[in-house]
């Protein structure tokens, strides 16, 4: 196992490598095996300026460490990253690099942006062992091509992230969840749409056919109470405030942990969600007002064949053979594939990261 302790170390390892290596952070999405390269020795927050809403850390820093630092200053990550360990049945802990490389985003993504929107700078080592930096530590930066965005969600195909700079949000003093029961998928999406079209700043909108429809409002105490009341009045049907906090379970889709079956994350227009879930063969859960659907399928089923609308489906959990036959990521149209393939071969000409 390759465990570089610095960016320089890592660059040397890559320059001398001639066989493919998988890049791993904390091993929550895939176990860390012999021959893999892990960033877990490259950890630590290198800069945290609460007054500038920015934090910079090494890629191997556990997300838990970052969360703790932010909590101490009552700040938070806008994108509410989801944690894959539960649903994949793994014991590792997520790292910043893994989180950014998979663009992992939770319920707040629909209004506050994804990981890619919070990342303001990266450093990485490409497939030739070159250290590259892009972006920086300032919130607005249009200097040159935005490779930081390209690295977010690149799943290690372009290089190994070594350092990431993030834009932060102030923390919230209070959070209220409104719930309704028994809505059809159509009614749920319609209600969530009404909610997301109000000025009351809904930061969570999810529908779980087994548990209900949920709307979240966050902010200062008085303001949250006011907006929750106004929102409830604007919505059709019966809504009540609940004490329980359903959002961690929605974020991590824990309903699908510990059971058989493949698991997908599907991104569609919210208005296309009801028709899509009607065609699904197994259990499902809607987040992002219907824009994100978690779906369970019998092992080996190609969910993409059920999709008649635009969007994309990522295979989150399946047997290795299924990942191989169906593809983890949604197939791209030819013109896009040519661009993507071209970029990958420029950044990783020796195909060292082909199995990341």
């Amino acid at each position, binding site marked *: 196992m390759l465990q570089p302790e610095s960016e320089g170390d890592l660059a040397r390892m890559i320059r001398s490598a001639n066989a493919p290596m998988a890049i791993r952070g904390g091993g929550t999405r895939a176990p860390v095996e012999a021959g893999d390269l892990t960033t877990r020795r490259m950890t630590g927050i290198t800069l945290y300026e609460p007054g500038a809403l920015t934090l910079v850390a090494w890629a191997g820093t556990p997300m838990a460490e970052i969360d703790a630092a932010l909590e101490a200053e009552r700040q938070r990550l806008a994108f509410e990253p989801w944690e894959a360990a539960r649903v994949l049945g793994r014991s590792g802990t997520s790292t910043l690099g893994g989180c950014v490389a998979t663009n992992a985003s939770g319920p707040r993504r*629909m209004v506050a942006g994804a990981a890619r929107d919070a990342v303001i700078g990266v450093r990485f080592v*490409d497939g030739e062992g070159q250290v590259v930096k892009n972006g920086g530590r300032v919130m607005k930066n249009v200097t040159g*091509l935005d490779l930081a965005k*390209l690295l977010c969600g690149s799943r290690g195909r372009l290089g190994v992230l070594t350092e990431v700079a993030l834009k932060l949000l102030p923390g919230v003093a209070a959070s209220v969840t409104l719930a309704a029961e028994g809505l059809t998928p159509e009614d749920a999406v319609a209600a969530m749409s009404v909610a997301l079209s109000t000025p009351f700043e809904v930061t969570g909108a999810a529908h779980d056919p087994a548990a209900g429809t949920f709307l979240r409002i966050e902010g200062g105490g008085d303001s949250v109470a006011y907006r929750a009341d106004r929102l409830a009045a604007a919505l059709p049907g019966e809504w009540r405030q609940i004490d329980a906090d359903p959002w961690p379970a929605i974020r991590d889709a824990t309903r699908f942990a510990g059971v058989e079956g493949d698991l997908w994350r599907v991104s*569609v227009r*919210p208005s296309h969600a009801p028709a899509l879930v009607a065609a699904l063969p197994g259990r499902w859960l809607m987040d992002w007002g219907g824009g994100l659907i978690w779906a369970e399928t019998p092992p080996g089923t190609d969910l993409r064949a059920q999709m008649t609308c635009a969007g994309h489906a990522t295979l989150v959990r399946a047997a290795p053979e299924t990942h191989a036959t169906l593809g983890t990521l949604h197939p791209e149209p030819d013109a896009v594939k040519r*661009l993507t393939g071209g970029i990958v071969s420029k950044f990783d000409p020796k195909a060292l990261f082909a199995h990341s």
Partner: protein
Amino acid sequence: MQMPDPNPAILSRKAAVVRRLAEALPEGAVIHAPEEVRAYECDALTAYACPPLAVVLASSTEEVSACLAVCHEEGVPVVPRGAGTSLAGGSLPTADAVVLGVARLNEVLEVSYPDRMIRVQTGITNLAVTGAVEEDGFFYAPDPSSQLACAIAGNIAMNSGGAHCLKYGVTTNNLLGVTVVLMDGTVVEIGGGHMDAPGLDLLGVICGSEGQLGVVTEATLRILPKPEGARPVLIGFDESEIAGQCVSDILKAGILPVAIEFMDHPAIIACEAFAGAGYPDCAALLIVEVEGSDAEIDAQLDRIEEIARRLDPVELRASTSAEESAAIWLGRKSAFGAMGQMGDYICLDGTIPVGELPRVLNGITELTESYGLRVANVFHAGDGNMHPLIIFDANTEGDLEKAEALGADILRLCVEVGGCLTGEHGVGVEKRDLMEVQFDPADLEAQMRVKDVFDPKWLLNPAKVFPLSVSAGRRAA
């Protein structure tokens, strides 16, 4: 500023190139008479101008594709153009290039409130996007000061921002999809009404690529419900440092205003003389705007007031009505006009970490004095996006060069404290030769490799973004 010599082989084939373009495009789409192409010789960076070989004004994605295919075959460079308001010379032509304008592509293609998105052709102006949805209570968030004139095409190419970006983000955070035409004419669809990319985030790298990768003809944009209301507070301080401190304190306290604007003394004086907004004569002014219901606004303004009072402001005026809000914004909104009266100006947009504001403001004052020029600063302080306006006299021999040299020094200072050359206007030709101040060779190489994939012949928007010496090998190939 140096531009590469035009390719004589292309200049001598002008008639043939124009003929092929005219054959491929409808009547009226190709402009080639010297007196007519002159209208496209520059953008808002008027210090540099060069009439292009020809201009194509396309009315559809197919026409953009046809134009690009011809230019690709002929080996003719193409300069994409929106409304031509770039402050960085992003749409400055070369004599051997075809300017490809998208201003006629200005239709709204689809509005979907259930999906909170709008699909437009990219020649539409920024303000017209909000105009299309505002009666229904929605708006498009990125709001560059040029929003009445600038096109979504240029906004996407420059990843433009505005005063309200602190809360809502810049263009890239509000862009869901594009139709982009590659230099060889291939039309590519990326993203759409859904979120995030299935694989590599090509949308993320196309946004802000300054016309280097393709010509964007359609865009899917996120629209947001309008807030219940918004009101600002005006806070004046005796020292710039303290105003900078106030910005950090507000952010640290957990308040996220929609805008925090900063004006320094020369800017206050100029705006006051121009607009008579009743600003106090002090070292620094902040305008902090918050949103929500009336009660929520009052609560946030109270907290901001409390933070500011601890720093002993010379003036503190919270708006309680639409009229008072307008009065507070009046001076700020007329800043560009006011500066225009002081002389010619260069507007920089280097961005710095918020904590470095005092140091950089002092540094700018020192540099300015050493050059014997005047600088006024009006900027987005919440995200550290400076806007030093360097005042000079274009009719005085050598003054432009002096102003540019000062500008370069200021931008070096921004990079030195951990910031960047440009926060919203883009690199264009203006900051092209400073790129090596911020980036190492490997950093630029990585960016140029992406361009190699999209535009292997390096025909799109020539001589921009990358220093000529750095891109020489690729341009010659």
